[in-house]
């Protein structure tokens, strides 16, 4: 059986599934239940200075749902912990003592002043916690007070605070990044420059869930007014994966350990994050929707997947997909794909036809001999994959790559097997001219 255990910055956990700093890790009661269910670790709900913050007593959450009311996205306006520092620290110490094999990382957010960090760090260290995560990501409420995303959006602040943390504590420091920024590499580089041991990402994305069209009030609202919240859940996964990959392949941050967060609900999601370089993954929404028991299914799936693929440990496939992430300009413009419809699987819904006809390259028939019939006209197909992406039948439309010697009937050109990208393409006015 595959070994799922993880060693992240020297923090050991029986599996790479940690609960992200959020309501699931709000207090001892939840964390104990999570550990009983099998979670490998937790990042404790973000601690702050006393007096503790207060949350609204109206709706904190709202969701984007799929047809069967499956949650695709979750929006929240919760702040950091609304309990006193002392109570949190006492519980953290007790939990760590009782669960020595699990990772207990403490998330922190205090004002951007050296004094504040200097004061809180030793208190956390005294709990025996395995490490700290700096919450530079919370996009609502706290950011209005100059904390959370307000720090995460200024690389200089990130570097400065990270440095203080390294200076005043011996604990491993994870910097949690906000996605509400144009280029994720800058904050990641700043964290590294400040001495961070790792980054974790993403925190939530600024969001408004909608508008109540009867009252014309944005939603969710508290007493007739709302404020933007933070968006997470399955819908944000692609955004997070890209940010993770950017950091993993940036020469300046390559090798910096990453804890992946954002929309992880299945073992498959987790495996994808690991393949893009993450050493652990963190989960919030899936636990908030399904409860802690979901981890059992994630563990089972990941373990069976690893056995099937012959991966003995997480390290065996961690980062495997990173080298495949490139820049557009390096993609092979001589590579030709064509869509192929498997007529035995096609149920003739016509969606591929209308999608290609109206919005792509008019490359799929609607009729043949007066009968409904969907077939790719290779001479028109640009290989865009739209039809594949919208066909309701799995594997019904696939892409085939033309082999060297075959002719692309669209352009009349013979495939040579050569590699040519935009940097040297004749249509590129800025092309690199080779000798």
């Amino acid at each position, binding site marked *: 059986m595959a070994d799922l255990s993880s060693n992240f910055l020297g923090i050991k956990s029986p599996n790479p599934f940690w609960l992200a700093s959020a309501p699931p890790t709000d207090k001892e009661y939840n964390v104990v239940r999570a550990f009983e269910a099998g979670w490998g670790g937790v990042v404790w709900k973000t601690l702050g200075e006393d007096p503790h913050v207060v949350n609204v007593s109206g709706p904190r959450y709202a969701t984007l749902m799929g047809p*069967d009311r499956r949650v695709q996205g979750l929006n929240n306006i919760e702040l950091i912990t609304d309990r006193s520092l002392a109570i949190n620290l006492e519980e953290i110490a007790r939990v760590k003592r009782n669960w020595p094999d699990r990772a207990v990382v403490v998330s922190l957010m205090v004002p951007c002043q050296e004094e504040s960090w200097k004061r809180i760090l030793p208190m956390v260290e005294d709990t025996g916690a395995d490490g700290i995560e700096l919450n530079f990501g919370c996009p609502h409420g706290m950011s209005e007070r100059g904390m959370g995303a307000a720090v995460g959006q200024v690389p200089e602040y990130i570097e400065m605070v990270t440095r203080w943390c390294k200076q005043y504590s011996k604990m491993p420091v994870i910097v949690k990044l906000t996605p509400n920024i144009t280029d994720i590499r800058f904050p990641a580089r700043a964290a590294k420059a400040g001495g961070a041991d790792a980054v974790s990402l993403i925190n939530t994305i600024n969001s408004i869930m909608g508008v109540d069209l009867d009252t014309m009030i944005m939603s969710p609202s508290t007493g007739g007014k709302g404020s933007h919240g933070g968006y997470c859940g399955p819908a944000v996964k692609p955004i997070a994966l890209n940010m993770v990959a950017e950091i993993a392949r940036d020469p300046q941050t390559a090798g910096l350990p990453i804890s992946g967060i954002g929309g992880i609900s299945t073992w498959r999601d987790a495996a994808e994050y690991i393949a893009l370089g993450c050493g652990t993954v963190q989960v919030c929404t899936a636990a908030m929707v399904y409860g802690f028991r979901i981890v059992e299914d994630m563990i089972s799936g990941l373990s069976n997947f690893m056995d099937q693929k012959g991966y003995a440990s997480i390290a065996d496939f961690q980062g495997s997909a990173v080298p495949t992430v490139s820049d557009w300009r390096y993609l092979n413009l001589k590579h030709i794909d064509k869509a192929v419809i498997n007529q035995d699987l096609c*149920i*003739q*819904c*016509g*969606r591929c*036809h209308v999608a290609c006809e109206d919005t792509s390259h008019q490359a799929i028939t*609607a009729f043949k001999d007066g009968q*409904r019939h969907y077939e790719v006209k290779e001479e028109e197909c640009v290989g865009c994959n739209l039809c594949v992406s919208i066909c309701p039948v799995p594997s019904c439309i696939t892409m085939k790559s033309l082999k060297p010697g075959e002719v692309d009937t669209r352009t009349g050109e013979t495939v040579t097997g050569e590699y040519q990208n935009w940097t040297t393409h004749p249509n590129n006015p800025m092309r690199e001219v080779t000798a």
Partner: protein
Amino acid sequence: MNRPIEKPGALDLPGIAAGRLAPESCALNFTDAHPPLNPLQALLEAERCYYCYNAPCIEACPTGIDIPHFIQRIAQDNVLGAAETILDANVLGGMCARVCPTENLCEGSCVRQTNESKPVEIGLLQRFATDAYFAAPSKPIFTRAAPSGRRIAVVGAGPAGLSAAHRLAALGHDVVVFEAHSKPGGLNEYGLARYKTPDGFAQREIEWLLSIGGIEIQCGKQLGRDITLSGLVEQYDAVFLGMGLAGVNSLGIAEQQLVGLQAAVDFIAELRQAKDLSAVPVGRRVVVIGGGMTAVDAAVQAKKLGAREVTMVYRRGAEAMSASAYEQQWAQINGVTIRHWAAPREILGSDGFVTGAVFAVTRDENGKLVETGETFTLEADMVLKAIGQSFVAEPLDLSLALEKGRIATDPSGQTSHQKIWAGGDCRAGGLDLTVEAVEHGKQAAIAIDAALRA
């Protein structure tokens, strides 16, 4: 719900008797055969639709309802928009949602059959949208075009006649509908199974249909008795005939006058009109002869009234029955026994009452139906004939070309007489379905309008 108290022994009363079941039992038996979808179910089912391009389900709908559009509108929480799409193509879309043999029509060609054998429940969704609209019609769906000054006579207020009248009214014409019965609706009111159309839906739907204005229905006016076709042709700019089928095919054997030997359609009509179902008499042992929708409906409803044994006898095999496989199953799960390959030979009676029927066993010999020589007898105190209905041409005082006994028309419904159109069951070459009658009426109205404006 507590089990209603049945009259002791009522089920076993010999002969034909009312009250075999307590009124509550009867009422329960005749509630909606297919309960409507609740909003959550409707939303989920709507999401199953792939929104096919050039969708095969539309092609399979005789009225050509744009199914993907109306389903998408349900999914987008726009039932008014959904109802508009449905009713614009099929003004009796509410009734059709209840009675269409969807397994042979739209749902039969839904692409989701292929992989899942589970089509989108188009009929139930159509019912959801139309029910929701009728329950709270936020705004009228139809408005009438400017008055044309033309008057059109429609004979028969069945689905064909009503559909023609409605479309003609919408196009700006004034319409007078002559109906022999005391209520409009045709078989919607007198024929369709009660468990498909409970709670007076037929009349509610007609009331809504008439709300467009410009349609006057004269009930109790029978062509051939109270009015003549030649008279209508003279007084009106055009005439539409939607008279249905007034005749019942005979068994082709001696049919003595016996209490209990009856046309299935008459039995059903009585049942449809009964205020108290437990007052409708039914046999203890009922034999229904025939293999179509009428036979199934008669058999199942007899069973639901409390008949102890009901047997449908059909002269060929299951696949040849005009009742769909789904309807055959429906009969069977309701406790009806279906016997194939047997043709009626003799109706037995004593003292003026039916006592049974003798059947000859048949088989297919190179496509020809032959009797094997073997016979069997089924005891019965009620024998219902359901081997088809026929068009009765007597009321027509102008001679119209017929085809296989029904009125011949061109594709638009125009008969051999320039001013007369026909549609529904009385028109030759159709499917004998409510939905097709609606389409005939609609197409004829469009053709009449075009002819009058030419």
